């Protein structure tokens, strides 16, 4: 698994050139962060590949246009991934609102949802879910978690950060991260329990 946390931060010289508007320096940043940013966004959007691609593109373009606001004395990865998470969560919220208030689709319509069953609870109880179906249910469950629970889950499981690193990244105490992870697992377990 490629995680920006497991790699050293970008060279200051590269960041300086990018903040001065050098597109080639920014291309190096794109190459380095394309996978982790896409993965983070993908997970926060519940595995919706189309939306993840659009939001990932948006993240990089927003970063490019707002690099002047980045403080070169601070590590780049947390700043950038926070921007990515915020945009993904905004997109998720917008999608939820669109679905809720859509005049074309009935409430609960999930036509843009990722792969996986639309309503796991509706499955016959005797039918045991396959591994892939369980994974889809977990992905969908993560995408429906409140942002403050979804972020630690994604950072812990996807980026492979430790509880301590997540606490630093989110600027909250370690205990808070543990509690959020615990409660997120409980919520996901409940969802999975209904599915199995």
């Amino acid at each position, binding site marked *: *698994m*490629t995680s920006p946390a497991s790699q050293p931060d970008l060279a200051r010289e590269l960041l300086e*050139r990018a903040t001065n*508007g*050098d*597109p*080639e*320096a*920014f*291309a190096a940043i*794109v*190459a380095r962060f*394309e*996978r982790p940013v*896409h*993965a983070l966004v*993908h*997970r926060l959007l519940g*595995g919706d*590949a189309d939306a*993840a*691609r659009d939001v*990932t*593109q948006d993240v*990089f*373009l927003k970063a*490019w*246009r707002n690099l002047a606001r980045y403080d070169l004395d601070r590590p780049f990865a947390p700043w950038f991934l926070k921007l990515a998470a915020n945009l993904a969560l905004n997109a998720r919220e917008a999608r939820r609102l669109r679905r809720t208030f859509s005049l074309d689709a009935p409430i609960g319509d999930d036509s843009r949802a990722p792969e996986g069953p639309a309503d796991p609870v509706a499955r016959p109880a005797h039918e045991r879910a396959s*591994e892939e179906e*369980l*994974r889809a249910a*977990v*992905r969908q*469950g993560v995408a*429906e*978690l*409140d942002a403050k*629970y979804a972020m630690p*889950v994604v950072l812990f*499981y*996807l980026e492979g950060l430790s*509880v301590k690193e997540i606490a630093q990244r989110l600027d909250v105490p370690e205990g808070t991260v*543990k509690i959020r*992870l*615990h*409660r997120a*697992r*409980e*919520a*996901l*377990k*409940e*969802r*999975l*329990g209904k599915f199995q």
Partner: protein
Amino acid sequence: MKPHEDPAGKPPRDSTVTGDCDRVMARVQELCDARSEERPADPHLAECESCRVAAEAVLELHRLMMTEPYPDPAPGLADGIVATVRTDARRTARRARAVLVLVPAAAIAVAVGLTLSGIDLLGGGRELVGDALDLARVAKEGVADWPGLEALPRALPAAPSLPSLGIGLGPLVVAPYAAVAAAVLFVAQVAWLRSQRRTAGRVA
């Protein structure tokens, strides 16, 4: 607990849950947080089925999430982003050139044009200010001792106050200096743009 609920409001506690149950589940969460492969070995698990089921469910969920495949981006995503960024950079550079080069160049052109048309801005401005100061003094102290008395009927109706003269004539006095400053700025910006182009060439 529903995912969207704030779990600050805890669900009602099951009356059958004991301190042992809490201890076992806390241990399961600890193992997950530490990414440990160890299984919880607590005698309570052998006697409490609900704890056993709950612990298994959490560990299964943990396994699923730990082994979740890393989602790779669609091919061409990075290329598309970089192409957009390059276009954006070119547009920004064009705008910067327009602002940094064309504006001072236009100022110089105006100054040169005025000079060639015979308007001596520097001398004329000084003269105008001097006349205006004379007029203001006359308006204040009277005309008895003023040497330019014969010119008064022409000048007096137009005699303005000092501040309005300053505002009106100031730019005329400043214009030649601004033109010189614009020229210096122009040369500096051309040099800067050339150095930027050299840097971009080195990176490419």
